[in-house]
């Protein structure tokens, strides 16, 4: 059976994706899996959030996940990508997001985790990824998102953080990783998300950026991350959530994008790939489903474009003490 049989085109094969994610967890010793060992925390976040969006979070053992997750916490308070690895802000956010999915943030020593993140802020307002000092606006987003979920935003200098992000704004209205770096949809998501969470979206030229973003849509309906590049399902998230946050999503053709994402599914084995007929992976499966959520595809829970978590999870956090 070909993966593009016409009777199944135009449908989200949700059950197959659920099975793909659960099976991937079991294939820990494949080469692909071993090579990604160090970012298992991210992989867990992508897989589990996808399951929750498809309302199947109950298929995993919460206790198993949480107890493994806690073995990744370092004495500094930060989380590593997997047991034994060094802590990093990337995996700290994923860990907090996973606990949020399970409504288990209360098991954390919030003071410890938030201090780890807050200490990574530099004098100019930027954030380093870890003690080794790499600076990137991805880390600004991560810090702001993480501390917002933990309700500790006051532990950092938000004004300076915003000022640094704004200094990374380019002449095309987009944002790069550091001042002077080229606009890229991933970085744009991070900067716009951080500005959204801190109530600073007035710094964004919405029409200028909205135009740059909507120009990412190519003839086939898919989105690329920068001019002249190929379309990729993960940009259904980075570009789309940015457009939603700046209220310009009506500038792209939603139906065509839905079709592109659905065409990237492996209809036999489940999972979603970067573009049609490529190899699938958890990363693109998550971004494909999250993209469909933003496009209001039926059967997928609503996701928050800034926090990248289901809206009911975000509400639960924000509306309880």
């Amino acid at each position, binding site marked *: 059976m070909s*993966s593009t049989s016409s009777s199944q085109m135009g449908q989200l094969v949700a059950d197959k994706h659920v099975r793909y994610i659960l099976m991937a967890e079991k294939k820990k*010793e*494949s*080469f692909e*899996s*071993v*090579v990604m*060992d*160090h*970012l298992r925390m991210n992989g867990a976040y992508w897989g589990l959030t996808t399951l929750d969006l498809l309302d199947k979070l109950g298929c995993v053992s919460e206790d198993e996940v949480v107890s493994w997750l806690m073995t990744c916490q370092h004495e500094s308070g930060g989380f*590593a*990508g997997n047991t*034994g*690895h*060094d802590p*990093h802000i990337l995996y700290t956010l994923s860990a907090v997001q996973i606990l949020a999915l399970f409504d288990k943030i209360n098991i954390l020593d919030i003071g410890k985790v938030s201090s780890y993140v807050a200490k990574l802020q530099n004098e100019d307002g930027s954030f380093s990824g*870890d003690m*080794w*000092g*790499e600076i*990137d606006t991805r880390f600004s987003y991560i810090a702001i998102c993480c501390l917002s979920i933990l309700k500790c935003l006051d532990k950092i200098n938000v*004004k300076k953080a915003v*000022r640094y992000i*704004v200094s990374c704004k*380019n*002449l*095309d209205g987009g944002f*790069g*990783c*550091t001042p*002077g*770096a*080229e*606009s*890229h949809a991933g970085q744009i998501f991070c900067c716009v998300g951080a500005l959204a969470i801190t109530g600073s979206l*007035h*710094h964004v030229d919405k029409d200028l950026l909205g135009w*740059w973003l909507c*120009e990412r849509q190519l003839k086939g309906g898919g989105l690329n991350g*920068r*001019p*002249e*590049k*190929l379309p*990729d399902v993960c940009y259904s998230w980075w570009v789309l959530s940015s457009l939603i946050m700046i209220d310009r999503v009506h500038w792209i053709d939603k139906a065509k994008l839905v079709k592109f994402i659905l065409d990237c599914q*492996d209809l036999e084995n489940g999972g979603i*790939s*970067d573009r049609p*007929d*490529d*190899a*699938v*992976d958890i*990363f*693109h499966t998550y971004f494909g489903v999250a993209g469909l959520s933003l496009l209001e595809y039926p059967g997928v829970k609503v996701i928050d474009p800034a926090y990248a978590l289901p809206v009911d999870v975000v509400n639960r956090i924000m509306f309880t003490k």
Partner: protein
Amino acid sequence: MHGRGRNEASKPEETAAKALELRSLQSQFMSNHHQKIYTQEAIQLSAKLLGINPDAYTAWNYRKLALVSRINDDSDPSLVNSIIDEELGVVKKALDRNPKSYEAWYHRNWVLSKKGRYYTSLENELQLLNDYQKQQLVNDYQKQDDRKHDNLRNFHAWNYRRFVVELTETSAEDELQYTNMINDICFSIYSVWHYRSVLVSSLVAKKADGFMPKETIRRELDYVHNAIFTDEVKQSGWFYYLWLLDQTVKMETPLRFSSWPSDGSIITTFCSEFGSFPLILYFDQAVSGVSSSTVTIDSELNGKEDLVWEPVSDNKNSQVDSCVWVARLKFDSREPCFSRKEYKVKVSLGGIFSSRGCNLTAPYEFVFTVLNTVGESSQQGIVSWTDGFDNWDDAQSKYLNSLIALNADTGFE
């Protein structure tokens, strides 16, 4: 994760063997890392691991720790050089494997920023980058593969380039020539146009020779017309064009300002008092050159004394551009007075420019009144100026600056 065919399955036995080898390497490495073992053998093992898995970030951290354990500020320069060579070699192998590895690029950056001044081959870095970026440089039409100009589109390489340019103090003019060279062959690489926009902006802001705003915009417009004419389908030139046009719109916009005291207002001072009050000029763009030669005061109040204008900014240097400028206007009412006396103060501005080349449609003036009256400032509802605002301290300056930064982005209202 990207660009692999769905049915490109490798032989199961091969992948199982590779997986086992990697597992074993990883667990040996972890043991060395946790026990802080930095022997030659252990360090080489980490290099082997990174050659297979360039994104294994903990191994890069380990190598940084190993470097720090082997060299310090007093180390023999030849030892330092050989260790740097070793690190850069490991990074190169990792980048051959994955040219988009954040961790590998950062390790190179970290090694050179820690020890770069000792490194005798620093000039090579720019050459290496040039070679890397130009490797695939052919006209778009000649390239069949859909991964056209991947090296030139590799943003990690461009970020690293900016780091090396700063470290080697290469000039922006030279870098602009570099972008010319690439554009001469292929006009459709967005990264190049972006870099050009950054270089041109910085040269204009620095008022470099040959880079006054109007002439630069005209020259760049001609330049980008070429690109668009050559290949109107490609987006990159069009985005640059839009930005240039936007600069011309801003340039024709007149510089606007407001003041305190504002035109037509009245400031009250009291008999038997002396002090000063601030005269504040607020512009909608950062300007320089506000001084007693560009701002003249015509009033009996201050006599012949020239006012000293200061920018409200963290930097008190009068060459700094600032949106807000302050001077202190002194008054002295200690001479006996028995009735109200009014002093008109006329402030005239001219010849003030913003960094974008906008200027006041000069001359511009405003007039306010200082009313000297009988009575005391302790009367309710009257603000006293006797303090003279001498305690315009850093906190207030920073606060005002942050307000300015906010307004500068949202547009003057």
